[in-house]
């Protein structure tokens, strides 16, 4: 009774509430976030800190002694002409991809937002270029653009335009544009996806109202749709910029910075400094500048979108009538309506014409998204000798599965070293992906829950920021310290090392996704579980995790794909077949034997894009609904 009495005497504002009404999180919240935050600190913070140390030191190549040089590395890098050339090239690359992903993304999103038969299928098709690994994309497009026997030349040849055939990537300016175009092909689905989610959140009545108010299609697009999409477009712009800054895989596969230095962008130059010149200090300095640029953009994004992320201001006030309709009502002017006149083209014809035009555009989207992938499929069942014949042709002389046999069967009739590595690499990819996802799923959902419920508590706010910044950190910045650290502790060339490295990507990603998921779970469910006698931990395990199971599934599958497609860590941190993943082996096909192995290479490519394509088809609805709203890296 006394407890009740003292509570009754308590001041109206409980002491637990801090100023601005924040609730102090319970101990459970701190315990739940610890594993995630500590691991992120270990796999992201530590390497980042180490690379700061690297950037401030110079290593003598002979004595292997490090000397402190302060900002010298930065100064050296900034004074080099190649740095500035790369900088301008990067700016061009970013500008090119930004403009085209945005334009194409808006067009595709507008098309696929309309209701038509087969829309779900088209949305899946549209997503395929984004789901594919950049390495597979690079392999595919570099063969399409290749001189002599390249697919584009083969198509031209088949069409009787053989005289137009050329080595498409041979010319510097053209190579930069084509690599950028390939990046556009890869990234447009992401832009389209986010814009589609934005369009779907737009109430249908807005356009109807505007139509009745006399606005035509163009007016409606510029006055209603674009203003509505403004926050989405801003987000997409910054995301696309960061992704373009970090574009690395396709450059590695397609041009390796060449011809000459024509496609040497910032990220590639940083790689060259670090891993070809072995100038770790200068490489780290350069990559730090890249990271700085990304962070800057990330912060701009959060600051501009922050108010919206915290929820739009909602009107709270009396709903009672606060004014009356005037008693005497006379119109000052009589507004003349448009005269009712018959349109020149009948309504029916207009509808037919517009639906024909619409279907034509959908067909264009289909060709843009699916044709390259279908070519890949055709090439994988074409006899290897067909792919290098002259004059080139895309029409196979016969259909064969010998390419698949070569890479999958131990004695597939091939003597190719690289083809024999495919089965093990598929296995490695699977093991690394599954274990990384497993570890991340054991920790990140708890952190996601806490971030969703106590977003204002200082520690968690900081945690959230660190997650966001981690996701904006180019993997290239992390891979250098990882490489140096792994060399000293003997984790190079192990699956364990790769799993730890992949955690640095997946942990923040999944924590962020789970935060979005938990935000859509009503808080009353937490209270109900607690009232029904659950401890915090029981509440999570018995009630909340089962509730968000679809979200967990989505996070698991999405995380697995990211690991499956990941190339940079895999290629730098492994060197022998024992730990190599499928993207690495794919890239090895190009590096090792430049001829006659295209058949097995394309068969391996098909196997590598199979899981992503399946996911694109199965989870299309999920993706479009924005359920994976946190899943926007890459």
């Amino acid at each position, binding site marked *: 009774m006394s407890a009740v009495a003292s509570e009754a005497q308590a001041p109206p504002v409980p002491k637990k509430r801090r100023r601005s009404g924040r609730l102090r999180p319970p101990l459970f919240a701190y315990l739940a976030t610890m594993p995630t935050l500590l691991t992120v600190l270990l796999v992201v913070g530590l390497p980042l800190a180490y690379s700061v140390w690297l950037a401030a030191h110079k290593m003598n190549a002979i004595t292997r002694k490090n000397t402190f040089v302060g900002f010298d590395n930065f100064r050296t890098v900034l004074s080099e002409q190649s740095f500035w050339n790369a900088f301008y090239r990067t700016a061009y690359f970013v500008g090119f991809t930004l403009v085209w992903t945005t334009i194409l993304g808006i067009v595709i999103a507008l098309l696929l937002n309309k209701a038509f038969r087969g829309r779900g299928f088209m949305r899946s098709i549209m997503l395929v270029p984004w789901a594919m690994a950049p390495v597979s994309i690079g392999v595919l497009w570099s063969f399409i653009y290749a001189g002599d026997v390249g697919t584009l030349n083969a198509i031209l040849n088949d069409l009787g335009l053989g005289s137009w055939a050329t080595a498409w990537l041979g010319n510097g300016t053209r190579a930069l544009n084509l690599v950028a175009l390939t990046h556009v092909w890869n990234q447009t689905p992401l832009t389209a996806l986010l814009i589609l989610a934005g369009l779907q959140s737009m109430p249908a009545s807005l356009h109807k109202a505007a139509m009745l*108010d006399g606005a035509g299609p163009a007016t409606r697009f510029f006055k209603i749709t674009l203003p*509505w999409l403004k926050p989405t477009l801003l987000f997409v712009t910054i995301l696309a910029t960061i992704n373009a800054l970090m574009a690395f895989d396709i450059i590695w596969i397609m041009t390796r910075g060449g011809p000459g230095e024509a496609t040497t962008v910032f990220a590639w130059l940083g790689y060259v400094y670090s891993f070809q010149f072995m100038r770790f200090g200068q490489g780290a300095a350069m990559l730090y500048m890249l990271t700085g640029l990304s962070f800057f953009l990330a912060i701009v994004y959060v600051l501009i979108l922050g108010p919206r992320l915290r929820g739009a201001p909602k009107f709270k006030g009396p709903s009672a009538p606060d004014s009356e309709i005037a008693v005497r*009502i006379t119109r000052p002017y009589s507004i003349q309506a*448009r005269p009712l006149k018959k349109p020149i083209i009948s309504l029916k014809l207009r509808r037919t014409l517009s639906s024909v035009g619409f279907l034509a555009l959908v067909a264009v989207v289909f060709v843009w998204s699916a044709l390259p992938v279908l070519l890949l499929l055709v090439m994988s069942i074409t006899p290897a000798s067909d792919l290098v014949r002259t004059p080139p042709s895309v029409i196979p002389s016969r259909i064969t599965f010998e390419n698949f046999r070569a890479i999958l069967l131990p004695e597939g009739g091939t003597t190719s070293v690289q083809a024999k590595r495919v089965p093990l690499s598929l296995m490695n990819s699977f093991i690394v992906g599954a274990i990384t996802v497993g570890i991340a799923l054991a920790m990140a959902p708890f952190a996601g829950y806490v971030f969703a419920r106590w977003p204002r508590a200082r520690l968690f706010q900081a945690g959230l920021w660190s997650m966001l910044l981690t996701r904006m950190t180019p993997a290239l910045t992390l891979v250098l310290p990882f490489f140096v650290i792994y060399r000293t502790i003997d984790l190079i060339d192990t699956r364990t090392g790769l799993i730890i490295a992949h955690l640095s990507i997946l942990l923040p990603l999944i924590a962020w996704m789970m935060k979005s998921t938990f935000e859509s779970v009503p808080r009353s469910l937490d209270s109900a579980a607690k009232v029904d006698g659950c401890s915090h931990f029981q509440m999570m395990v018995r009630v909340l995790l089962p509730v968000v199971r679809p979200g967990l599934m989505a996070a698991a599958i999405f995380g697995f794909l990211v690991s499956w497609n990941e190339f940079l860590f895999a290629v730098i941190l492994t060197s022998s077949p024992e730990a190599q993943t499928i993207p690495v082996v794919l890239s090895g096909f190009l590096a090792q034997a430049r001829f006659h192995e295209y058949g097995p290479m394309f068969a391996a490519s098909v196997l590598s894009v199979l899981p992503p394509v399946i996911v694109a088809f199965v989870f299309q609805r999920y993706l479009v609904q924005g359920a994976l709203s946190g899943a926007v890296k890459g």
Partner: protein
Amino acid sequence: MSAITIDDVVKDYGSHRVLHGLQLDVREGEFVSLLGPSGCGKSTLLYCVAGLEPISGGRILFDDKDITELSSRDRNVALVFQDYALYPHMTVRENIAFPLRRLKVDRQTIKAQVAWASETLGLSELLDRMPADLSGGQRQRVAVGRAIVRNPAALLMDEPLSNLDAALRVHMRTEIKRLARDLGLTVLFVTHDQEEAMVMSDRIAVMSNGHLQQYGEPMEIYRNPANRFVAEFIGSPKMNLLPSDERAGILLGLRPHDLTPAGPHDGEDAFKLTGEVVLIETAGPQYFLDVQVKGKMIKATAGDITGLTNGSEVTLSAPAERVYRFDVETGAAL
């Protein structure tokens, strides 16, 4: 303002027919409600009139001019949406001026016209606010302002009051009714709330499953329902239905308000029922009685419940002319 004629309008979604040849005419300046349960096609009909949905058959005329072929922007109709559809990135002023801008009306006229509309609706203080900063009731006024700021041939309203709280809803329906009367607006008003329709309309069109069930003045529909569906849908509490003792295949309908404990003033031919009181509900000026008659629950009203308790026997009576008869098979009133 125009008169509206809906002439044999048919609407199909694929192979699914949602409007089955509707025939409806609305006089100039008349306030007509389209009333029915959700999914009955009332909103679809409204969108057809607005030109937002193409019709599959029939014609729509404004003042004898066939507008079936016109796109919605050429029909000069205004629509107030259930969610108001205010343009979220525009101020109240820009929202209201939007239709006038599209008509390329000159600046001066727009200014005067917006001032008039906002004054009429009591929005003058709010012109520079964004929709997000308005209360539900204020948003609703802005939506109405945007609709009346030009001279629409017809004002269409799609459940405009359903997002307001109860007190405000009652207040707004009076205001909208008066506004429509004073401006002489031709209004087509969609609602599923029979009370709203009764209070506001000159005539009510009751719809169900894409068919027009009855079209008439509110009291006519209340007193002479054309069929069992209309009888049950109109009036609260719902009409009691029980099989007739006299003739098979006939249902008797009794409105709770017509069914009261029998008294000395009952007519000779009054209809009588006897049963056991199960529950007495207090409803302010009167009481509702749940009475069990031959295993069936019957609702009745009483002004005075002296002598009535749970379990007590009561005899209910209704005037003979207030007993409705319906065919069991067709549901048609007899």
